């Protein structure tokens, strides 16, 4: 009967029927403490025991939860390592990239999980600390609290290690992403097909064909919408010939500005959802005429343009007198590469930059990073679209 009365009184106190000191700042004082505070000489032993038991249970549940989360994370980290090995073996570069990006995202979210676990661990330590302050603890409760404290500290150490593992995991993923070779070919926003040429550090892209009349007009005089894409027609457009070196260089400048504008816009909105790639600089995404080094590489391959093409390197004469005259009078000749000998001369000769011929056109080249970065951008666009299509998940 007496116990029943005490429980009823406690119930009333919890429901707030009796006036209690409700302005107590956080943490809210336990009912037993509140009663003791109201009247320090009054102690409700059972209430205190109940509170203690509640706190201990909470600590126990929390500890169990954190331990299971820790094990889950350990398994996830092992899974990430195995997945990385598997992804690196993928022969398809685009799939490899997608896999690496997903791994990076998983590692990132795992890292955030560890950070949240860190906060929870601190809360748990506070709980244990508060519980230890209670008086009249049973010895087994006290030893439990001590043990829980030790385990919580161990959890903290473990979280730190997991964070370090995850941090060190991110860098190899980014390195692996950067080491994925550029695609063999790509199509610019202006519709020009670029083909990879060369080897190793000498890789670069060259337009598959000399720039056509349609492509030239599309860039020099873009239609409404500024897409600068050549209209598709049934019959292939002829190569743009009868063009001077100066105009060819001007075309490259305009094309570069158009292509870079298309590269810049999507970049800004990506924030931290994808790994930061150092190749994102715009200085390598320009389109220019090939130089002498690139000509040497092209001439060793099976690349044979349909017309003679301009090379953006000065032509050096064979005799010293002409060389001196060129220097004295500030005149320069540029190299023309004519692999099909349309000019009935050697495969390379020098010509004045303003010259124009019906058999002389131009091709464009760009750094290998351009193709790499375009593929990267397409991948991220695709992943953004996929993410946008997924239903929203309520975060826990």
């Amino acid at each position, binding site marked *: 009967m007496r116990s029943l009365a005490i429980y009823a009184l406690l119930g009333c106190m919890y429901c707030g029927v009796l006036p209690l000191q409700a302005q107590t700042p956080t943490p809210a004082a336990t009912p037993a403490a509140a009663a003791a505070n109201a009247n320090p000489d009054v102690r409700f032993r059972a209430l205190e025991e109940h509170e203690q038991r509640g706190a201990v249970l909470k600590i126990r549940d929390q500890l169990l939860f954190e331990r299971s989360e820790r094990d889950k994370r350990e398994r996830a980290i092992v899974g990430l390592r195995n997945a990385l090995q598997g992804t690196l073996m993928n022969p398809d570069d685009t799939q490899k990239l997608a896999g690496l990006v997903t791994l990076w995202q998983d590692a990132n979210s795992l890292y955030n999980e560890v950070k949240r676990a860190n906060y929870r661990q601190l809360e748990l330590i506070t709980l244990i600390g508060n519980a230890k302050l209670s008086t009249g603890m049973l010895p087994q409760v006290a030893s439990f609290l001590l043990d829980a404290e030790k385990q919580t500290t161990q959890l903290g150490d473990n979280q730190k290690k997991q964070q370090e593992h995850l941090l060190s995991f991110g860098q190899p993923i980014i390195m692996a992403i950067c080491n994925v070779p550029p695609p063999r070919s790509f199509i610019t926003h202006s519709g020009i097909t670029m083909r990879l040429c060369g080897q190793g550090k000498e890789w670069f892209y060259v337009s598959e064909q000399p720039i056509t009349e349609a492509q030239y007009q599309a860039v020099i005089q873009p239609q409404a919408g500024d897409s600068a894409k050549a209209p598709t027609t049934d019959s292939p457009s002829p190569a743009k010939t009868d063009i001077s070196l100066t105009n060819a260089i001007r075309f490259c400048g305009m094309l570069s500005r158009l292509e870079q504008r298309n590269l810049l816009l999507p970049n800004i909105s990506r924030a931290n959802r994808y790994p930061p790639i150092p190749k994102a600089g715009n200085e390598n995404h320009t389109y220019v005429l090939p130089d002498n080094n690139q000509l040497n590489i092209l001439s060793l391959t099976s690349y044979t343009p349909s017309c003679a093409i301009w090379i953006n390197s000065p032509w050096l004469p064979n005799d010293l*007198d*002409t060389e*001196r*005259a*060129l220097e*004295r*009078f*500030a*005149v320069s*000749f540029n190299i023309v590469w004519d692999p099909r000998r349309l000019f*009935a001369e050697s495969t390379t*000769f*020098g*010509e*004045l930059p*303003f*010259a*124009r*011929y019906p058999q002389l056109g131009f091709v464009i080249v760009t750094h290998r990073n351009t193709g790499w970065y375009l593929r990267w951008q397409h991948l991220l666009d695709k992943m953004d679209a996929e993410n946008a299509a997924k239903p929203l998940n309520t975060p826990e």
Partner: protein
Amino acid sequence: MKQIYRSLFLFTLILTAWTAMPTLLAQPTPAMYRGKFVRKEIRRTIVKPTFICTLTKGASPFVAFEFWEQHEITYFEINIYQAMQEVVREKNEDGLDVVKDFAPIPGQFIKDNDEIPRQEIQIKGLLANEKFSILGKEYVTDNKGRIYDLGQNILDLFDTMDTRSFELAISHATLGEQIITLTRNLISRQNPVIPGNNAASQYDILEAFGLNFTQQMQCGRDGLKVNVTTYGEITAGKRVAIVVDVTNSDAKPVSNLIARSFSRHQELNGKLFYFGLVTANQPVQSRRHLTLPPGVDGNKPFFKAFACLSRHPWHREKLFYVWLPNTDQPARFIRYVTIPTAVNAGQPLHLSIAFWDIIGAIPEKRQDLSLSIQANK
């Protein structure tokens, strides 16, 4: 027999005595001494016909030679002296000569045996209608004894900028060969370091063109204007003229101006155009116009004489003609080139004419030309 021998001996004796008699009886010949020099005597003469060649001025843009016949005469002369003899002025009591003197022997001279050669050049006259061989080609002089290098082959020799002189051999079938050293001095200095050095060469082609390539201390290029035109049919294998005109409207002269053609075709590449000093409003090749009212014959002696004397502008009302120095005539140089034959009709030919003066290259004045080859008719 004895009598015959005796007669013979006597005969010989008498004969010998008779022939020796004048010698024995003759007076001894007096010794002759060389006296004063009297004259030279040409013992023999050798005449070698040859020719001389000079550069003609005022034939720009062609190098022109003028040929004169000359004789190289070599006179072999000997000296003639007075013959002197010893004369006794006084004898002593014993009949011995005590005072002697030298006196000329009238009518007697002593000739020196040593021949002294003396050369003399005699210009005989212009060599008209004569054949000469220059650089392996035959040329015939005109009626003024001149040969014009219409093919500009001499100028081609100097198109290499490092070539400053060239030894040109000119030969004639009978008059022999001459070697002249042609020069092309692109930079002359006003005060040469060593007097006498760097002086204008007699065979400098730029001097012959009347061009001034003396380096100017103060010069500029702000007022320089250039123009390039072509004359002639642009057909494969045909010759066309590339004409470069320059004017200067600035007070500062342009110094040592030259131009050069650049093209990937060898026939059009590397031709030098010479201008030298280009002053403001004063052309290098100035011409003068004589403007006469209609009906007046400018060939009349009165006008010709007056034209020679007067160099000042005359007001039209005072005198019925004016003397106009032509200030708007540009400095001009012409090079003749052959259109390459390896290029098809309809194909363009590209060349640039670039300029250089004493300050350096003038890239902003470069003229770019595109010529379209016409089909052969």
